[in-house]
């Protein structure tokens, strides 16, 4: 309370004509609003390189002390963060992936960043990613990385069996048939049974818009034409055993290791995971643009993260300074990828050269995978927003997805069920849903 009054006082003095930058209300263009030089910041993250980025920040910013605490990833983490906010023990800075951001914002868990980092978000990021953090007219997080889709394939397998790299989804289906014909154990794709993220991205790529706002109401359309088309396509591939149905972690990477998965669609970050998890297949993998429905470039994102200031943060100004450095400063971005093994794709396009220079491309035979990533990022279909109850939406999809391959359930029917569960939960929380 005392500190806030002091800041207000400092601001009114500076408003007398001395300094303008630094006060809550100033949002003049791209000029840095947050210029705090001292403070204590606790920082929760599960993203690779978080410890290095905190250490690098501490070295270059002697006045601000960032204390990094590693946390688990996934739903466990979001429960932990939510409980911490409810209990008043929230950190000053936390990572939140794009899909979860609206849920945190609508549950009143986040500080509104309009006056601190809003201008940075306006000036530094393209619309396709800005729309993921600017919600309801306010800025809730600053994007760090995006996850444009790519096609990963075994160039040795494709060359040996004279299989062409697919450019459209029709050709992709043909490719999966050729792969299975060439080696009955091998498959040319995966339907992840424990994570709807990739499937959602593929619907997004096809032009679906699951969520939107109209006035003060949410629009929900998980079962629109584009989503149904994508669901029918992948459900069909799974039921004909042309792609395998696996969970995202061990079973999937084991299948890659054992040459049972020779092509798959994933985001940019998979490149780093691929070379870390299956190091002995060096030189055998290449990346290509993700296939599209009409042959024209189109893409979407599978993952990507932003940094937020949770409600109850003790030092928002220092937190904002830290967030700005780790998301938009070349030195900050360099610290993230210092290990040389992260294929993280920066949300700020100006920082792509930084990560590109750090990533060792030997695994991919020297291929410029960041060029594929950049064109994919440019082709991300605009207009997508995530919904306010993604936990419920995702759970409703995952609960049934493993039954698709057996033929027990149609994938498109799962989207219809998820639509119902989502609308029900939005209304249950008191929000409006447009008819």
């Amino acid at each position, binding site marked *: 309370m005392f500190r806030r009054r002091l800041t207000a006082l400092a601001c009114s003095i500076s408003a007398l004509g001395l300094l303008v930058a630094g006060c809550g209300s100033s949002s003049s263009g791209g000029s840095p609003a947050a210029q705090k030089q001292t403070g204590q910041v606790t920082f929760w993250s599960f993203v690779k390189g978080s410890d290095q980025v905190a250490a690098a920040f501490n070295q270059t910013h002697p006045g601000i002390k960032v204390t990094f605490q590693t946390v688990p990833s996934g739903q466990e983490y979001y*429960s932990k963060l939510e409980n911490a906010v409810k209990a008043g023990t929230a950190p000053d800075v936390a990572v939140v992936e794009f899909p979860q951001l609206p849920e945190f*914002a*609508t549950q009143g868990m986040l500080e509104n960043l309009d006056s601190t980092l809003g201008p940075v978000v306006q000036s530094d990021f393209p619309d396709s990613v800005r729309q993921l953090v600017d919600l309801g007219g*306010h800025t809730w997080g600053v994007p760090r990385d995006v996850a444009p889709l790519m096609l990963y394939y075994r160039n040795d397998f494709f060359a040996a069996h004279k299989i062409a790299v697919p450019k459209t989804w029709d050709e992709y289906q043909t490719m999966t048939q050729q792969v299975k014909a060439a080696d009955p154990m091998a498959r040319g794709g995966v339907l992840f049974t424990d994570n709807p993220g990739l499937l959602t991205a593929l619907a997004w790529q096809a032009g679906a818009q699951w969520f939107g706002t109209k006035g003060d109401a949410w629009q929900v359309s998980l079962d629109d034409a584009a989503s149904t088309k994508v669901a029918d396509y992948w459900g069909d591939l799974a039921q004909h055993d042309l792609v395998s149905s696996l969970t995202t972690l061990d079973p999937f990477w084991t299948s890659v290791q054992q040459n049972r998965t020779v092509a798959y669609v994933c985001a940019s970050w998979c490149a780093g995971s691929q070379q870390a998890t299956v190091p002995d297949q060096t030189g055998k993998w290449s990346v290509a643009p993700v296939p599209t429905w009409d042959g024209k470039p189109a893409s979407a994102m599978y993952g990507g993260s932003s940094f937020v200031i949770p409600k109850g943060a003790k030092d928002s100004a220092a937190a904002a300074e830290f967030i700005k450095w780790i998301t938009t400063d070349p030195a900050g971005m360099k610290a993230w990828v210092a290990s040389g093994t992260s294929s993280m794709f920066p949300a700020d396009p100006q920082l792509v050269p930084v990560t590109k220079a750090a990533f060792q491309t030997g695994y991919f035979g020297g291929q410029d995978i960041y060029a594929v990533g950049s064109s994919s990022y440019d082709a991300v279909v605009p207009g997508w927003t995530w919904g*306010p109850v993604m936990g419920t939406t995702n759970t409703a999809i995952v*609960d049934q997805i493993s039954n698709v391959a*057996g033929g027990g359930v149609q994938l498109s029917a799962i989207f219809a069920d998820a639509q119902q569960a989502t609308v029900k939960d939005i209304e249950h929380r008191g929000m409006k849903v447009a008819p």
Partner: protein
Amino acid sequence: MASPSARAQRRTAALLLAPFFVLFAAATLAPLFYAGWMSLFTTRTSGLGFGGTRQVFIGLGNYVTALADPAFRNGFLTIAAYVAVYIPVMIGGALVLALLLDSALVKARSFFQLALFLPHAVPGLIAALIWVYLYTPGLSPVISFLNSGGLHVSFLSSGNAVFSAANIAVWEWIGYNMVIFYAALQAVPRETLDAGRIDGAGGIRTALSIKVPMIRPAIALALLFTVIGSIQLFTEPMVIYSASGAIGSSWTPNMYVQTAAFTRGDFGQAAAASLLIALFAAALSYLVTRFSRSRRQP
């Protein structure tokens, strides 16, 4: 008028009982009342939801929502299917093993007792992780072995999940219950057994007509604990759920509570569902005790 010695005795009793009641109040009653209090509220926001949230009193609304939710009700059906598989196999198996150990057939008695009890010493979470590893195609040596023999079994399909979960629980609990039954069998008077033998009863007849009826209280107790434990089924399916997606997030009632609290962030709903599960377990244990008592006193 109580004599001074009786009063001193009462004071000692109160002193000795106090730690129990303090802990009982702090660790059982207080959370129970807190859950009851929380179950009457829900978090609401409005419009698009960016204007903040508020706590709203909704009376029994959370209970009505839980009972009306097919996902919650289906959890109890899962438990019914699980119990139908698990209880006969586990209790029956434990009984057979105890009777075998008690018979003259077994040589290295204490070795078998320890070997069968050993799985119970493994914490449930670890046990579930080990089994999920054994169930996962591509990792499991068991599945590769079965495949090489031409047998293709999918332990983690939604149809087999009940059996896979029951199998883990049987592995964990059969030795434990066997030890209880075996201990009860030691208390069967030798004279009764001798009398049976003199009347010409063989080993199997002795087991079925003398030993089993005489340890019925132990069996009833094991049954009671098993039924209550089954309603609370959580760890094994949760590990199966997170590892494979073969089952849904609300496969058992306790998983429904977990999802409500930690995926949907709806603590009121989770508290209401927990109390409903507790009520159901209380009612069921009452029925089991009634049932086993009436059988004992015909």
